[in-house]
């Protein structure tokens, strides 16, 4: 009677919207980062460009940690913390990615070209 066809369980628009969001998830732009920000105990210590190979010693709360930047990727090479979670995270390279070492209070974060409120 009253436009019953509108209430079929599935219509063409539903399938299109599901496909649209699935595409949106898989092809969401994950930008390559530009800068590495290494901070100890919430204060910014170092900003490095991602495209130069480098090894850095960061003096954390419980000891020195070695950070390696190579081929646009960053990792913690070794750290004095007991569980080594930060070492097991491995390489990071995308904007917004981060490695956090809680016992050593070291945070390594990758930023894009633009700085945000925290880094200013």
């Amino acid at each position, binding site marked *: 009677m*009253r436009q019953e066809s*509108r*209430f079929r*369980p*599935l219509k063409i*628009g539903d399938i299109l919207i599901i496909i649209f969001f699935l595409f*949106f998830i898989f092809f*969401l732009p994950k930008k390559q980062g530009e800068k590495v920000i290494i901070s100890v105990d919430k204060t910014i210590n170092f900003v490095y460009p991602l495209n130069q190979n480098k090894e850095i010693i960061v003096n954390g709360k419980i000891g020195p940690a070695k950070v390696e930047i190579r081929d646009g990727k960053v990792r913690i090479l070794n750290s004095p913390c007991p569980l080594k979670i930060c070492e097991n995270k491995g390489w990071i390279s995308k904007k917004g990615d981060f490695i956090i070492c809680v016992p050593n209070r070291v945070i390594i974060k990758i930023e894009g070209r633009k700085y945000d409120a925290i880094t200013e």
Partner: protein
Amino acid sequence: MQSLNKIAYLSVFTAVSISLFVVESLFPTPIPGVRLGLANIFILLALIFLGLKEAIFIGLLKSIVGSLILARLFTPSFIFSISGTLVSTFIMWIIIKSHLPFSLLGISIVGAETHVITQLFLAVFIFLPGVSFFYIAPIYILSSLITGSLVGALTYLIFSKIKGRYNFCLF
């Protein structure tokens, strides 16, 4: 008689959506902030049977009373909840009014996605300025796709039960 019927449905929808909101907030979830959004069933039903004003009324009351019961009134999670609900209700109403080929499932998915995207924008630009939007978005969009289609299917079931007994309909 018509308005009495309407008041009865409005109060039942409000009561059920508040209780669903409170109960499902108590369950732990694997990703912080992800819930089923069962209260959205009754907001969607209110949009269809009662209209936009009543649906927004249910959404506001759901967020305020639910947060009051859970002791989180005026905290960030309350602001997330109320803004997401308002935006998603309005977008769902626009989709119902426009004659796009969406069934209840699609309307519910769009509602869930706008809800979660509103909250992500709030989170990224106001509450947690430092988190990259594109880094956290895929998890939340995927989970709201799943919960949105579940809620849409449930809404369709309830809708087909109520349809015969209630003769005012927006469509």
